[in-house]
């Protein structure tokens, strides 16, 4: 076994190239607001500019196929890129692009050649930012109950309905959405996905008032919206995966959203609380010397390490072609539950200083206050903790001889 990426001389040379390029191309003045809802339009545009520059290099989606505008790089190259950009507290892409990540992969698996040529280069080169639209007032955990309708009319589909908890601040170029194309049809056989240009007539977007959007720093969504579709005419060629074939597309989308992608990276909030406790004194001694604080820090550390290893395992499984079953929802479930435990630990350690972003009396420049709100809200996006457990049960085959298979990934 080898728990670290191995770098060949060629990859180390690549790292040098990446370092030099990032030094020259990361715009000056990029800010990292504690709460991503504080990301200004100007800041968002700085990040999009960086995304387009990365996209030109093939580094925005480094492992996506070159033929569709991706980088076509190996996993090991991609790791180098992610590590280097992580050094700037940025990720790939450096802004919220859930529709690009999940929709892009779904199109790669289920789109026609023509659709791949049309949509993927725009995503992979950073020309567009895409939101995903799944949840409706009556279709939360039960996504198959989606009621937003798409009715065929000549060369178009006409979409009507409402989606909630959508996207981010500062708009999108495309909306990747699931609709019902046969209201009388059999469940799971009446759904269809569309890539919808966001500027079509009849689309309106209203921000929601939420405790938190559960995102982390600049790549978090910041804001969630309600989106209304009022007789929106979408060209039929934007239907992905076939009419009433939407559930199979959903399995790919949900597989990634449920955590099978994995990742390599630090836990920023854990680094922050450790650093805070070592460098801040209470009663004349570093906080980290207080026996109760040490107990809590070790709780936090253990949760963070297990979470890191689950993500690392999933990253490796995905890129090595290993047979994935319950590991995606397991990592997701663990991330959510441990995130909440970590927030409790931080509240125990810091008391009310964890709950205010006041520059004098709050801890951690607002990041800790934002994390306290995000940790509880993070339990539901991308599937509730209960849904993650339901999927795990099916994949493990608890109480059933036939184990459910994981969704196809590109």
């Amino acid at each position, binding site marked *: *076994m080898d728990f670290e990426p191995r770098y060949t001389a060629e990859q180390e040379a690549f790292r040098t190239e990446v370092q030099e390029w990032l030094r020259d191309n990361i715009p000056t003045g990029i800010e990292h607001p504690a709460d991503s809802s504080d990301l200004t339009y100007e800041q968002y545009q700085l990040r999009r500019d960086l995304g387009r520059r990365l996209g030109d290099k093939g580094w925005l989606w480094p492992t996506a196929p070159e033929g569709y505008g991706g980088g076509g790089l190996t996993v090991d190259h991609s790791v180098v890129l992610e590590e280097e950009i992580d050094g700037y507290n940025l990720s790939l892409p450096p802004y919220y692009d859930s529709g690009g990540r999940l929709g892009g992969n779904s199109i790669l698996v289920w789109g026609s050649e023509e659709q791949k040529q049309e949509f993927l280069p725009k995503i992979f080169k950073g020309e567009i930012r895409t939101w995903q639209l799944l949840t409706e007032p009556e279709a939360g955990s039960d996504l198959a109950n989606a009621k937003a309708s798409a009715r065929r009319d000549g060369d178009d589909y006409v979409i009507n309905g409402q989606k909630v908890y959508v996207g981010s601040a500062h708009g999108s170029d495309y909306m990747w959405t699931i609709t019902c194309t046969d209201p009388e049809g059999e469940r799971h056989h009446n759904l269809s996905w569309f890539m919808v240009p966001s500027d079509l007539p009849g689309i309106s977007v209203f921000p929601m008032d939420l405790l938190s959007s559960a995102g982390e720093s600049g790549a978090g969504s910041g804001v969630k919206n309600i989106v209304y579709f009022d007789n929106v005419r979408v060209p039929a060629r934007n239907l992905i995966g076939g009419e009433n074939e939407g559930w199979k597309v959903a399995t790919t989308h949900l597989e990634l959203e449920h955590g099978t992608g994995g990742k390599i990276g630090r836990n920023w909030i854990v680094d922050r609380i450790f650093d805070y406790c070592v460098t801040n004194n209470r009663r004349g001694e570093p906080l980290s010397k207080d026996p109760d604080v040490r107990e809590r820090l070790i709780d936090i550390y253990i949760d963070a390490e297990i979470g890191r290893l*689950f993500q690392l395992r999933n990253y490796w499984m995905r890129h*090595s072609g290993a047979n994935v079953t319950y590991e995606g929802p397991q990592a997701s479930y663990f991330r959510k539950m441990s995130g909440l435990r970590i927030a409790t630990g931080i509240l125990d350690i810091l008391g009310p200083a964890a709950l205010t972003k006041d520059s004098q009396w709050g801890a951690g420049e607002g990041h800790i206050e934002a994390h306290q709100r995000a940790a509880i809200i993070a339990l539901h996006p991308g599937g509730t903790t209960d849904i993650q457990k339901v999927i795990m*049960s099916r994949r493990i085959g608890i109480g059933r001889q036939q184990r459910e298979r994981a969704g196809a990934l590109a």
Partner: protein
Amino acid sequence: MDLSLTEEQEMLKSAVRRFVDTEYPKETLLELAATGQSAPSEPWSKLAATGWLGIIIPTEYGGEGGSFTDAGVMFEELGRGPVPGPHISSAALGALAILEAGTEEQKRSLLPDIASGRRTVALAITEADYQWDESDVQAIASTDGDGYRISGTKVYVYDAAAATDLICAVRTENRQHVGLALVPADAPGVSVRKLEGFAWNLAEVRLDGAQIGPSGVLSGRAMPGASPFSGGWLALEQAVAAAIPLLCAYQVGGSQQVYEMSVDYSRTRIQFGTPIGRFQRVQDHIINLVNELDSARWTTYEALWKLDSEREAADSIHLAKTVSSAAYYNACNHAHEVHAGVGSTTEYGLTLHTTASRTLYQFLGDPKFHRRRLADALGL
């Protein structure tokens, strides 16, 4: 990065699994449960004959010269039984202690016998205060001619009743040093009394003036001219640190086994007209179980990898033991919730694991001990 086992490790894994299935079927394990140990017994002789007891012993000392990960793979499979010791005590702890603390001559005379199973070793470290700490050691080595007499009471000694030799942590007469004495278990003045109850093969070892010669001291890197006991404790700590991930691998194997038992049972046990695994309450137990299992698995194998690649491993070792001890313990608890009454019957086999999980929870340090060490290792 590659989190898969090598082809050789996969082969070793299936070979050990076949061996355990054949030589340690449930009936045998239940018979051995009465004593909590497998040596001496027929399957133990067969295990010794495979050479696996020498898995981490270098080839020059009659072992297989395997890596820590190789050994982890083997101990994981033994843990599935759970095959009772003294394999962890002898082939992991004992071998590593002699490798760390033995002279070249001691290694040549002792290690081939450990590899072949002719000699089995248990570590008698803890005493009444039970702390896995140097300060706990009060047994005394008093000078007697050119040798020593060992006196004291060691308690909660794992595998002692199955061992031919005991590596005892002892204090010098002037109380300044804690070192290691190798005492034959059948020497005059040594008595081993098994501790009955829920404990899995724990014993009291009384040392009443047991005699050893100068070659009975494992002196470690004691400075020339200094007491031969002055280097023993440090060597022992290093040996224990390296053995812990192997014990963790054994706990991973046990957790894996009770996980698979629970999934099987959830499919076949019918209540209210349906397999019980269709109830989400029951599913929750198994999901908690698999989360514990995987936490233990990946912290353990990362620690093994760090040992093999000679990275600084202290934090990973303390993490792995903290997580794996709790995981095996909790895995058994969850499995009991799934199995209910059936799980409580001895003949079903779950209680073998339940019993093992309790003793191993604290063996070589319980979670609270390793959490303290982890905080130190992290520089808190």
